[in-house]
């Protein structure tokens, strides 16, 4: 079936152009066309959040976005949040507070948490729990994930204050 379309995506600041069937899901375009394998597939039905990326400033489950819908979008994945030498404050805090075990949910979880902290820089524990309720983790029981995110929030706020 060769009804392929031309797709343009900006992923983690880099422009990509490729041919894809319009029905191809964004998650597979990222993982299989662009080799960005941080976001994972846990369900393909919008329930687990393993595939979470930021698209045009919003958290989306990339298993529920056709590549045709994403055409022209700006996408951020876990690979765009920090570098090996300068980890994102959430990455640091997940390591520090044991916020992960098998790591399969982690890219989606951290990507979601990063957006959450932009949406609400001063979340309560309840805000965090509600804000990540679209991301399932089977390993950690969330307690340390919540701790990691709250700790990252206070670090971010402290450094903002220091900058002022």
């Amino acid at each position, binding site marked *: 079936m060769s009804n392929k379309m031309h797709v343009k995506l900006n992923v983690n600041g880099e422009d990509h152009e490729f041919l894809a069937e319009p029905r191809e899901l964004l998650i597979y375009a990222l993982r299989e066309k662009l080799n960005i394998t941080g976001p994972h597939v846990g*369900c393909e039905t919008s329930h687990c959040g393993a595939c979470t990326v930021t698209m045009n400033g919003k958290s989306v489950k990339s298993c529920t976005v056709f590549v045709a819908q994403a055409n022209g979008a700006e996408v951020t994945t876990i690979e765009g949040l920090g570098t090996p030498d300068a980890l994102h404050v959430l*990455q640091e805090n997940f390591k520090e507070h044991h916020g992960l075990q098998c790591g399969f949910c982690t890219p989606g979880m951290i990507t979601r948490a990063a957006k959450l902290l932009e949406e609400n820089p001063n979340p309560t524990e309840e805000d965090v729990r509600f804000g990540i309720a679209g991301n399932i983790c089977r390993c950690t029981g969330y*307690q340390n994930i919540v701790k990691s995110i709250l700790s990252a929030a206070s670090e971010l706020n402290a450094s903002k204050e220091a900058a002022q």
Partner: protein
Amino acid sequence: MKDEITRDERVANLKGMGCSRKRVEDSRFTQGKGNYVDDIKLPGMLHGDFVRSPYAHARVKSINIDAAMALPGVVAVLTAKDLEPLNLHWMPTLAGDKQMVLADGKVLFQGQEVAFVVANDRYIAADAVELVEVDYEELEVIVDPFKSLQSDVVLREDMVAEDGSVPNGAHGPRKHPNHIFTWEAGEEEATNQVIDNAEVVATEEMYYHRTHPCPLETCGSVASMDKVNGKLTLWGTFQAPHVVRTVASLLSGIEEHNIRVVSPDIGGGFGNKVGVYPGYVCSIVASIVTGVPVKWVEDRMENLMSTAFARDYWMKGKISATKDGKITGLHCHVTADHGAFDACADPTKFPAGFMNICTGSYDIPVAYLGVDGVYTNKAPGGVSYRCSFRVTEAVYFIERMIEVLAIELNMDPAELRSINFIKKEQFPYTAALGWEYDSGDYQTAWDKALVAVDYKGLREEQAQRVEDFKAGKTRKVMGIGLSFFTEIVGAGPVKNCDILGMGMFDSCEIRIHPTGSAVARLGTISQGQGHATTFAQILATEIGLSAESITIEEGDTDTAPYGLGTYGSRSTPVAGAAAAMAGRKIRAKAQMIAAYLLEVHDNDVEFDVDRFVVKGSPEQFKTMKEVAYAAYNQAIPGLEPGLEAVSYYDPPNMTYPFGAYVCVMDIDVDTGVPEIRRFYALDDCGTRINPMVIDGQIHGGLTEALAVALGQEIAYDDMGNVKTGTLMDFFLPTAWEVPNYETDFTVTPSPHHPIGAKGVGESPHVGGVPCFSNAVQDAFRPFGNRHTNMPHDHWRIWQTANDLGMHD
């Protein structure tokens, strides 16, 4: 030379046992650089996808693959006919049964694999699946194991002789064509006699529903047959890679040294990834047929419908006691629904796993257990979902029986437990059903837990709440869930534990490098437990090199020593012991080298943290780093160069972790919504290797327990349709539903384990399920509840309240 740093600092630098070392795995995982099976991409790789049966029981009259083959991009469509010449249309299960790889004339459960499509990409494969035309003739469906044993409908014609008689199965005589085995432990007659003459008897029937481990990553594999050099490489979601290699060799006829099995990063297992699935076999065959690598990754529905269910035990109990609450006997019968094939992942001699630990933590003089395994039109499996083999079922059973007995005796269930605990001085304790418990101090743990939660205060509050409810002042009732569990983990002694004939030892191989760092390889495989972190801690303490300079590798059968893998909390009890023993071999040789360097006799040096010191003169020493270098650069008389060791550890016994849990719950009787106010978990896993990792395991295990107790199930309708095949219907708790847990501990080391560790990953699940369930049931006890079956979802809780007239 004067030492620059203190001994305490040297200990701290090792990052050895007992410290909350941060995990070395986390750098790659937090940056999205894990390498899971679906991340593997090989040149020319094809994708496989299954045609699955929509029916739970049907004849397959014909399969037409023409339209599928005509679709551009489709390379092959395999059916049982293609596998038959290779003798791969059926495969052996871990339980001594066999299972169809692809439907051979009939299908026996909804979602069963019928044909395997291989195509250039996953989309074309999925399109082609729709184009395969299968002509089915529906047969009568049996989803109830009790009906199955009465039915004339034969599910497994291959298990019936030509004359209609029922031959023995892998576990002895069978009573009916749909019967798989009877397995017994203990003394039935003596037990009945005690129960028949007892002062008090409580009986109860309970159904432990079918559920599923559902790790976030589904199962999958990539097979690559290199026809030039005859080597097969298989990457996959394997909790036991060495066993997979042996099975793959036996099945395919490829010699074992020509097969390399690799478990890359695994996105959670919880028992789901112990078995061998048709997808693995089909990816291998497809790669052999096509000559290029073939990937198969199941989707979530396939995962829930076809791979590895857990539980599905119908349990009938009788427990007897004296009037003052001393238990005198226990009788348990289980009807075990195994689905269409007996694919339980248990040690071979234990078709019902370690269900015979069902006397729990109590000193019960006489007991009997009988288990009947039955075929139905449901998916095969019967794996241990975050527990040692069937231990969750056993602990749920006894912890419910205790509660029911407490009702019968009109006694407080906490007190009833205290009266019956196996006492500290009774260990090692041989239970009525045969196990020898290694060590325990139950009363101390129990008292600590009850004090921590102010148990007495809670009961007073609950009594007040009952008054208030009856007076119409509140619509919320309060439950106090208790559980005290003893696990049996670390399978296991080769004398009684094997899988497909492979003894359940485990292994560790260590190489010390000249500059004083090391690599160690083990026969296990982490699925999130953090082995790369914690095994290095064991070794750091044993050999005196920092954990930071010890690399741990697992999961590649070409490099790792043979081991039986990771499940049933066996990694620390068995492979952890192997690590300690291999470390001690290293130390023994290092001691000789140190003595040579220090120019004293071997016996005149002793190991101290990270060095060997001359006895009585601590300023004379050689560090382990110096010794490592000497092992490679000096010719030492009587010693081979190098510093490596390997240990295969056959444990003398299982280990028996235990714990005391309390859950406080408020339940709205009008909505059926339970609110967990408090959850206190005290675990005793013996020696603690990494408290941070232990707490993480407990949080996770409790959350999986919450899921199972409060809503998670694989439910079927009468036609054998799976009603809970997506994450829409199959309950996985989110952060919103899960409480914060309080963890606590006591330490009772295992006397037979080299470092005294017992294993912890599964305890919280084993102890958690009865604790959550007991909390719900305890809330309704003052209103006349005796027992209701899990899962206690909102609807069922509402129904319980309604049945008790609480909505009137």
